[in-house]
């Protein structure tokens, strides 16, 4: 996993609640057996006017000029601003893979679908929960100022405007933060406790042997 420490970038506002993972990456792209290459189909049904299928040449597609990521002022955005319950629905990890692959490294929203939230953290994509009113304020700022950028500092757990005028603090689980800051492989960390897992397993077998037949 790539390390996440600090990020400064253009913010793209996606002003919808309950954006589900089907919208983030539609099902026809889940047939891949790889982890990469999903970025070209991020938000496919919203981003393009024609229907997308795997393997299509993106240069022949018809972009939807109204969709936020297609607007020149948000070109190169690395931070997505969203509304409540972002990433709800399906457990597909292809959703954070697609966002990350596209170049989005952080998503700010008042709340997230839980599985999406977890999946993001395991892929170097930082989901940031801010209060409703803070998110509202950021939506106004983004729309008012073309080229609006934010700075995210994971170590300090803050989101700030580049002039430092607005600073919002966010919460993140200490363990997740540690993994993200250091780009750590969670499996390796868990396997450091292999003896404890084995000891638990033995006692579990003794108590509920029918689970192990």
């Amino acid at each position: 996993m790539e390390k996440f420490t600090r990020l400064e970038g253009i913010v793209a506002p996606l002003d919808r609640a309950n954006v589900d993972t089907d919208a983030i990456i539609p099902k026809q792209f889940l047939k891949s057996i790889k982890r990469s290459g999903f970025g070209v189909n991020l938000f496919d049904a919203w981003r393009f006017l024609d229907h997308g299928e795997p393997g299509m040449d993106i240069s022949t597609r018809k972009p939807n000029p109204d969709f936020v990521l297609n607007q020149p002022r948000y070109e190169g955005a690395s931070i997505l601003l969203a509304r409540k319950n972002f990433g709800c629905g399906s457990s597909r990890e292809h959703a954070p893979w697609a966002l990350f692959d596209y170049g989005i490294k952080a998503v700010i929203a008042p709340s997230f679908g839980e599985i999406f939230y977890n999946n993001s953290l395991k892929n170097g994509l930082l989901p940031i929960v801010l209060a409703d009113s803070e998110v509202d304020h950021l939506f106004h700022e983004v729309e008012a100022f073309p080229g609006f950028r934010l700075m995210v500092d994971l170590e300090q757990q803050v989101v700030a405007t580049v002039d430092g005028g607005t600073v919002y603090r966010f919460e993140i689980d200490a363990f997740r933060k540690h993994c993200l800051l250091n780009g750590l492989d969670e499996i390796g960390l868990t396997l450091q406790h292999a003896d404890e897992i084995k000891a638990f397993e033995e006692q579990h077998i003794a108590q509920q042997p029918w689970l192990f037949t």
Partner: protein
Amino acid sequence: MPKTLYDKLWDSHLVRSEDDGTSLIYIDRHLVHEVTSPQAFEGLKIAHRKPWRTGSVVATADHNTPTTDWDKGIEDPISRLQVETLDANIREFGAKAYFPFLDKRQGIVHVIGPEQGATLPGMTVVCGDSHTSTHGAFACLAHGIGTSEVEHVLATQCLVQKKMKNMLVEVEGKLGPGVSAKDIALALIGQIGTAGGTGYAIEFGGSAVRGLSMEGRMTLCNMAIEAGARAGMVAVDETTINYLEGRAFAPQGEMWDRAVAYWRTLKSDDGAEFDLVVRLNAPEIKPQITWGTSPEMVIPVDGRIPDPEKERDEVRREGMERALVYMGLEPNMAATDIKIDKVFIGSCTNSRIEDLRAAAQVIKGRHVASNVKLAMVVPGSGPVKDQAEKEGLDRIFSEAGFEWRQPGCSMCLAMNNDRLEPGERCASTSNRNFEGRQGAGGRTHLVSPSMAAGAAIAGHFVDVRSAK
């Protein structure tokens, strides 16, 4: 201190926890399917890791498999590659059981687990699929997980988790005729919203829930994720134990007795405290229909499409307006005036034998309306299909003009050929009405099996309570 069912399941699987609550919980059953596992197996191989305990793995191919012309195999080459990749991975790594494409016991992963007795009370169950909450009907702690977590569970037999909060959804009283577990689930989501359960494990209780069959309880727990909760569960009672007795992977003989004695303890203690209690009154629940593009956009069958102008919250209002445009509906229209093009009876929510019986009862001796282009029944598994055929349900459906298909996920997510065309409107027994879920531009109305059946016959939604 009195414990909730969730507390008990958590405590009995806790391997270790850090001061901040980050914990490792041990996983008993790992269900695997073709869409969310290839990258996990690949990750294991790249890191030269071995699975911890393949005896916990039960696998099947369901999301991508066709529901017609099985003799032709899987025609779409990319879908076929995914299914073949699963075959190869199971061959290489091993599993307790694998029900591949064409196997008689193949089916939707959340249907076959319980059906084979591979889901047992007291287990922790995971699967790279959000509807894993279904298995909680057996007093399991069942979570949907992402692909990195699939890899993590394969490698370590554990999941990194923080304990969730406890929510009790208590449904008291008797459900009216024609009202089912699906309607309880949709009514609940209408009440608490799609994020209402976020951060909670939901236990469903109350006399209406105890009165449900295991099939109904599975439908209810299945939809917990649509209420935002990663896990839903129901306590063990006689219904649970009767369902499991004699299933292929259920314990037998003396081991069965020991297991049952333990399973009977799997309920919340008297006086256990919940962080949140939500109450529903069963006799007041009417058949439900979703009208929008989120499961919380739901109304009772005798209701009208809501008017965004009456919504004060700006974000909600805009969401409603967008949903109405996408769905091609007008505010204040009666739910029963919505005409449909297709009907889908299937998915891990409503494709079990009881669901098919309920639909068949409405359809028997009648015919699908002429404006309905396609009505299909996709049984949840090979054994469900066999049982239905034994009972003659397939004939009832066929004679009424329904297509009787092979098992799989099918038009629940339309990864195979079963899908809606742009603008088509569907009465569906599945669980998600998101934009494009059943096909790009498709319009989904979530309903119960008998409501879907009633709509197929009438060509528009009808109140199944009075249509009988």
